[in-house]
């Protein structure tokens, strides 16, 4: 196999359809870890996530002959995974964590209006007081375990649709195009979910830094 060249989807799909074990093996190696990571956010245990991933590969085997490449191979595989993981998550009652904070509204501002000057102020809509600089936080410059724990915890508590988008965009590093395709979201909707999710993570970190400064 050629190294250092991304195998094109066409080539890879053709090889899979032809039963090329090396191609399948490479696919499994490449995708299993990220698939597991995504699956794990829907189900309650590592073992359940492993099952979801295995079922996904079975789904890939069952479907590859009929796969017409209207989407990329990656998108297609993730759609299979997401279908299985969501169904399984609902069965396990994990798809909506009780820890989700507040209502899942998607209209209100992500920053409290109190942080800005009102009409009575000299500059309405501008900061009442500037936010504290994070650059001075040693935790940000040398990322500590505690900081990551704050992020992970806040991510787990996001409403499911926001968590899903943040996870794919920022943990897995997908493009907005890929996320829109896999989750069948409009670009606008995807961006709103991403922004609201990120804003909550930002707020969680801000609170954490403020607490550690006053401690």
């Amino acid at each position: 196999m050629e190294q250092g060249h991304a195998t094109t989807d066409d080539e890879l799909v053709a090889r899979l359809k032809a039963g090329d074990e090396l191609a399948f093996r490479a696919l499994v190696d490449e995708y299993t870890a990220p698939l597991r990571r995504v699956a794990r956010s829907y189900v309650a245990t590592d073992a359940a996530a492993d099952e979801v991933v295995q079922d996904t590969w079975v789904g890939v085997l069952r479907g590859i002959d009929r796969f017409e490449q209207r989407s990329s191979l990656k998108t297609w595989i993730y759609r299979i995974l997401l279908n299985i993981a969501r169904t399984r998550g609902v069965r396990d009652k994990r798809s909506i964590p009780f820890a989700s904070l507040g209502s899942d509204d998607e209209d209100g501002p992500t920053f409290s209006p109190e942080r800005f000057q009102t009409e009575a102020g000299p500059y309405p809509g501008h900061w009442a007081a500037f936010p504290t600089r994070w650059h001075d936080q040693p935790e940000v410059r040398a990322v500590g375990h505690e900081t990551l724990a704050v992020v992970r915890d806040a991510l787990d508590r996001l409403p499911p649709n926001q968590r899903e988008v943040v996870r794919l965009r920022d943990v897995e590093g997908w493009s907005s195009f890929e996320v829109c395709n896999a989750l069948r979201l409009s670009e606008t909707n995807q961006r709103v979910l991403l922004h609201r999710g990120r804003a909550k993570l930002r707020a969680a970190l801000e609170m954490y830094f403020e607490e550690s400064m006053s401690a």
Partner: protein
Amino acid sequence: MTTIHEMACQELVERVTEYLDASLTDIDRTRFEDHIGECPGCLEILEQFRAVVQLTGALAPELVAEIDPPTRDALVSAFRAWHNQQR
């Protein structure tokens, strides 16, 4: 003073993700950049969102282990069986 064309801080903070995704219109991107050029508070928020993205990205390696060889072998066997069935 706020003019019609200026982007207020309260609007800017809601559009950071659009800015980072390069999906603002040319006019709005100019408004955005003009604003952060002059407003340390909003520049800070932009930096904070960048830090959030970076920190969230740093979660990836911790969340998962690689596939274990027996599982992979089982999958490859299933693939072989599938292919034999096709013929």
